[in-house]
């Protein structure tokens, strides 16, 4: 049995736009995803994440290259691919005229689930996703958050070996998001492969076994969190809370050429690339003649790695 759930080779997707240069939304991607992993696809807006997902879920044909899901080619055997996947697209998608329960049962029909099993699973999911009070109400009468719950709950009706989630947590409250994340983790442990895109990097940091960072349709970096941190060695995050925000601190930070700066109230967070030995010098410099309530120095977060790599890529390409 092939160990890969997903194989992508030299994949290109070009969109022709009238009167303008064609856009290479996916520009020669090559990667494979091992079965049973949670694979995160990260990238800024317009990086090509959704286009890539559309190719992989058979919604769009690639211009060049191949992509296979569990050995089935997305162009040559789209129906076979669809039988092996389930997906949550970026937009909130639900049967607005049907009740919450009917949404789940209708989806089960498409996935050839028997009536008894479908009813049982629908009941379980309605409870798990806290939809009991609205189970018989039409989805059009529910808020965006509830619609998203219905959309994500559908995925757990079935046991398709590969799941695609395009920014699944949009519109979800934090408690439900945690619940869904632990459910996804359990599904991966049971052997399902989960491919997700997200802009919330803490989510990817917590959930993904394997991460691919893309920008402008190209791969920038690939690996688990530790590997990516290696790629970004020398990036440190300094957080300092002052009794009151010093006037000149912003200009002082600017001279350090930070990767990222966040000033909130009396707290300053800076991510920068520097030598390890100089970190404390920088902290001392910022603290000099000021009253510091808290100092925290840590290695790069996924967000820092992401910003550094995408910025670097854009500089190189321009």
């Amino acid at each position: 049995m092939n160990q890969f759930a997903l194989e992508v080779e030299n994949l290109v997707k070009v969109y022709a736009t009238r009167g303008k240069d064609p856009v290479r939304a996916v520009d020669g991607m090559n990667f494979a995803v091992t079965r049973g992993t949670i694979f995160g696809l990260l990238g800024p807006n317009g990086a090509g994440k959704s286009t890539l997902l559309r190719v992989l879920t058979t919604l769009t044909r690639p211009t060049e290259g191949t992509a296979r899901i569990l050995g089935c080619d997305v162009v040559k055997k789209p129906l076979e691919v669809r039988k092996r996947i389930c997906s949550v697209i970026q937009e909130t998608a639900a049967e607005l005229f049907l009740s919450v329960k009917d949404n789940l049962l209708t989806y089960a029909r498409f996935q050839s689930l028997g009536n008894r099993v479908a009813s049982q699973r629908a009941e379980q999911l309605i409870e798990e996703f806290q939809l009991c009070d609205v189970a018989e109400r039409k989805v059009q009468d529910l808020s965006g958050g509830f619609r998203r719950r219905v959309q994500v709950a559908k995925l757990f009706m079935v046991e398709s070996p590969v799941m695609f989630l395009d920014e699944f947590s949009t519109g979800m409250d934090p408690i439900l998001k945690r619940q869904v994340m632990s459910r996804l983790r359990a599904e991966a442990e049971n052997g399902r492969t989960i491919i997700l895109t997200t802009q919330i990097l803490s989510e990817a940091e917590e959930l993904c076994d394997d991460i691919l960072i893309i920008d402008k349709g190209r791969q920038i970096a690939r690996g688990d969190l530790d590997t990516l941190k290696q790629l970004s060695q020398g990036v440190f995050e300094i957080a300092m809370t002052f009794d009151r925000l010093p006037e000149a601190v912003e200009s002082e930070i600017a001279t350090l050429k930070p990767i990222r700066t966040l000033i909130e109230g009396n707290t300053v967070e800076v991510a920068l690339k520097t030598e390890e030995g100089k970190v404390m010098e920088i902290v001392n410099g910022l603290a000099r003649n000021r009253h510091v309530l808290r100092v925290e120095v840590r290695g790069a977060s996924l967000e820092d790695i992401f910003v550094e790599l995408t910025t670097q890529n854009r500089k190189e390409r321009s």
Partner: protein
Amino acid sequence: MSSLSAVVYRETKIRMTNLTFIFWDVFFPLGYMLIFGVGVNAALGAPAGLSGVDYNSFFLAGVLAMASFAIASNTSWSFFLDRDNGIFYEMLTYPMSRSEYLLGKVIFNVFIAILQTALTLLAGYLLLRIHIRWETLPMLLIGMALGTAGWFFFYSIFALKTKRNDVFNSVTSIFYFVFLFASSMFYPLDPLPGWFRITALINPITWQIDWLRYMSVGIGSLRIVLAEGAAFLIFSSVCFFYAVRCLQEQE
């Protein structure tokens, strides 16, 4: 097969939650027959060139074709609803082929068309005393089923090519005007000017109406009706394959 039944199940569920749609599909053409048809019949009598046939009998096939056309147009509009609800693209990732999706969408509506036909025939027979050829009823129902499907595939092309609801509504309004009036729906073609007659003769709805008219009240020539039936079948098949292609090109 299970995918097809899933689409039919979905369409039935959705349409059952909104009975207004079904009401209009079933009763609107009936109203046309009982109000417009009866009015013209009383005021103008038999259509020119058709001796021994009153307007009610002549117009019966027109009413059926109008129902078929309207049901198809309403069904194809559901692509916009699916797009607005966001479910359209997600459905395209479900385990079914594009042709199953299209066929599934139309099957429920074929049932509605058959129901509408039964009601119209009964109303025509009982209220307007139209002499109906019951022996050709199966052929009449086939004409309604294939007609509804054919027009749905035709409309689907525009619904899938057009991304904007308002543009599609304008297109359907123009189609209603052109297709229905430039056909044999409301009047016989013989007394019409040459250019009008030619336009009507190449209009696929005329082919469907002529079939339905022959199979319901026996007006027309079997040879011509068979040729028109074959032409309509070709028209429907071309529309089906092109609509599937349009669905495959959805990005």
